[in-house]
């Protein structure tokens, strides 16, 4: 009976995928994608994750987990698996899976969707589950520590450098997304600004009025946030007030930089912790609402399955489908960042070893389905509208007329009137060239929500979606700055002891300033760049994130081989090989390509020539030297990241070779087995 049921799931999934692939109509209903995704996830979870747990990891429920052995009522606590699932999902889900698919939609809906499904089921979920399990067997040790213990110091250092670099690039690109969403939008800016005092208020409530009563505080905060969204709309109607919040990119960038610094040096209870509670509630609520709305509305996908931009001429970012669809999707398919969470807080809560399936594999399945929803939200827009929102003026022309004629000439008809009407519906002054993914996602979400739950509120839904993205981007921004600060303080402590003390205020200020300067630099250049910094920063982020996934998969592969399970090593080695391939090819193209929209060096060269021949208008000539330097720096950074990846791969190969030859390697760092009943 069971077998029959699963055969049906497989059959339905295969027909849905076939239906998508063979569809020759103008549009296709999003339900095809939803059904195909649900079936693929169900099969992956039911069979692949079970097989990995039983054969490759050999989970053993008779073995006491660290939560049981080291239970201290605080961080080590055996917790119900669905609750750990909720915590873990809230920790791994961020803005990444929303933005990546939105940008990758320029290739059409099919390439991104396929990679989200395949990459998650065979790559991302496997990585998350494996690292979670390995860390659980090692008392919740971090990825960096595991790399050092199992492979040697090289892997350990690589993990630290990789984490620091990814943190800087990630924060810069997310900051840029927020800046682009707020640029010349008084409503969005006022709402995002209002989230800060609201968070502080909740922070004070949670510390002074009713300590630790998270639920009631969050509900009060959520009500205030919704009020801020509506209030922003009222402010937008006011003649003088709206001009105060009608800001250019540069002042907004300085605001984000100043905010990041202040947030990083303030005590966590005041700003970071309360805003994280709000963002977690918003995140879970919105994801749920979006899933329900997609099913109720079952929208038609208007984007073609595959566009002509797979050849690398895309307006949102330059580069061909291989390897850039894989670099761009990032977190929705496989995210190295998850390995840091899976080897931190989560393993200390796991009550039974077999829970790693639900928590590791299952959370990533859910994260991947968020990416699928983002893809649906991006592709249900008229393609012309989608490209008009997401293309930078450097590509399609600065004026509205120029942009619509360029985009229409690609075969995606759009008119100025259509864009103006849409902007008016959304309560914005314009939606042309609102790059970064957030505005187009917000338009998509607003149309899903308003058609599923009653129309008319488009502008409110739009700004709700912007606020929703901004709230958790800002959380990632200061959480990331803090982590970067701790890592930097740790490193600086080797140079001069007092700098390593995390509670010494001068050291806190210096390290925070350095970290903020690091990402602030990339953010500022991204705002100044007329071709839109997303084109540069998102691929760098993708490469950095894949590098971290590569390190995590190396650690996993190394441990599997050390345990004498060479025949199962492909489970992590195959995704590792794929990641190494796409990261290396992407880096090669980003550095060496002669196309200035793809290659960093070619772009620097082109700009230098223009500058020398006086072909640039004065305001662009003023920033050109900075941009040229930045392109060269980006090339060096991409090379550094890929070099680190190959060093770790070589180190893993060295360890594996020694195992194969029977030579001594570092001993296993697994905690000794203690039966559950001995507790």
């Amino acid at each position, binding site marked *: 009976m069971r077998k029959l049921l699963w055969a049906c799931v497989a059959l339905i999934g295969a027909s849905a995928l076939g239906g998508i692939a063979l569809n020759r109509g103008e549009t296709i209903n999003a339900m095809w994608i939803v059904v195909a995704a649900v079936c693929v996830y169900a099969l992956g979870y039911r069979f692949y994750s079970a097989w990995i747990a039983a054969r490759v990891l050999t989970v053993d429920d008779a073995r006491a987990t660290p939560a049981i052995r080291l239970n201290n009522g*605080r961080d080590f606590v055996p917790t119900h698996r669905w609750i750990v699932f909720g915590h873990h999902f809230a920790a791994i889900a961020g803005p990444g899976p929303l933005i990546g698919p939105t940008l990758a939609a320029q290739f059409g809906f099919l390439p991104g969707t396929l990679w989200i499904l395949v990459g998650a089921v065979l790559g991302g979920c496997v990585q998350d589950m494996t690292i979670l399990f390995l860390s659980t067997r090692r008392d919740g040790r971090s990825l960096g520590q595991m790399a050092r213990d199992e492979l040697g110091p090289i892997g350990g250092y690589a993990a630290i450098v990789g984490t620091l670099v990814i943190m800087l690039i990630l924060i810069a690109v997310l900051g840029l997304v927020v800046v682009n969403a707020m640029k010349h939008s008084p409503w969005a800016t006022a709402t995002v600004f209002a989230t800060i005092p609201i968070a502080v208020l909740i922070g004070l409530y949670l510390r002074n009025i009713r300590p*630790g009563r998270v639920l009631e505080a969050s509900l009060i905060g959520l009500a205030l946030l919704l009020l801020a969204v509506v209030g922003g709309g009222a402010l937008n109607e006011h003649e003088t007030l709206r001009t105060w919040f009608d800001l250019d990119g540069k002042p907004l960038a300085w605001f984000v930089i100043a905010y990041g610094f202040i947030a990083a040096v303030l005590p966590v209870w005041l700003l970071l*912790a309360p805003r994280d509670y709000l963002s977690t509630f918003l995140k879970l609520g919105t994801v749920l609402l979006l899933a329900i709305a997609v099913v109720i509305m079952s929208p038609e996908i208007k984007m073609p399955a595959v566009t002509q931009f797979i050849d690398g001429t895309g307006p949102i970012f330059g580069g061909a489908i291989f390897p850039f669809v894989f670099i761009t999707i990032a977190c929705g398919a496989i995210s190295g*960042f998850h390995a840091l969470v899976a080897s*931190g807080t989560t393993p200390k809560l796991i009550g039974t070893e077999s829970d790693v399936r639900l928590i590791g594999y299952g959370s990533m399945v859910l994260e991947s389905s968020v990416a699928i929803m983002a893809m649906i939200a991006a592709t249900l827009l008229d393609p012309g509208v989608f490209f008009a929102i997401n293309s930078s003026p450097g590509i399609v022309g600065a004026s509205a007329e120029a942009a619509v004629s360029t985009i229409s000439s690609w075969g995606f008809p759009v008119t100025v009137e259509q864009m103006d009407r849409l902007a008016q519906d959304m309560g914005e002054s314009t939606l042309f060239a609102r790059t970064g993914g957030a505005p187009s996602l917000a338009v998509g979400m607003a149309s899903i929500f308003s058609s599923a739950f009653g129309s008319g509120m488009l502008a409110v839904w739009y700004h709700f979606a912007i606020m929703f993205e901004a709230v958790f981007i800002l959380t990632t921004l200061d959480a*990331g700055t803090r982590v970067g600060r701790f890592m930097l303080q740790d490193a600086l402590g080797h140079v001069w002891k007092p700098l390593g003390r995390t509670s010494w205020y001068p050291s806190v200020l210096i390290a925070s300033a350095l970290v903020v300067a690091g990402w602030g630099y990339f953010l500022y250049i991204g705002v100044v760049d007329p071709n839109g910094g997303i084109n540069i920063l998102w691929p760098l982020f993708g490469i950095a994130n894949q590098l971290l996934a590569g390190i995590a998969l190396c650690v996993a592969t190394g441990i599997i081989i050390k345990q004498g399970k060479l025949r199962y090593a492909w489970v992590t080695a195959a995704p590792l090989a794929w990641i190494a391939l796409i990261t290396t090819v992407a880096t090669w193209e980003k550095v060496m390509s002669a196309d200035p929209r793809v290659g960093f060096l070619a772009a620097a060269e082109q700009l230098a020539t223009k500058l020398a021949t006086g072909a640039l208008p004065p305001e662009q000539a003023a920033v050109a030297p900075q941009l040229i330097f930045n392109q060269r720096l980006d090339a060096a950074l991409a090379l550094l990241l890929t070099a680190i990846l190959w060093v770790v791969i070589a180190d893993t190969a060295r360890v594996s070779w020694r195992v194969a030859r029977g030579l001594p390697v570092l001993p296993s760092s697994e905690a000794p087995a203690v039966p559950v009943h001995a507790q």
Partner: protein
Amino acid sequence: MSFATLRLLPRTLWRFIRALSRDDAYSAYLAHHAATHPDTPPISAREFYLREQERKWSGVSRCC
């Protein structure tokens, strides 16, 4: 599903939501403390909350 489990459903759900949001963290700590160190006084709700936040945000607890 029997009537008894159905009747308990709201309470189970409420417990689940409290645990998910860590709203119950302090009462869980009190229970653990009473069981393991009954001879020492537990720390206050505010002290517990502040220490927990400090611990939570000292490592990577949020992702992209």
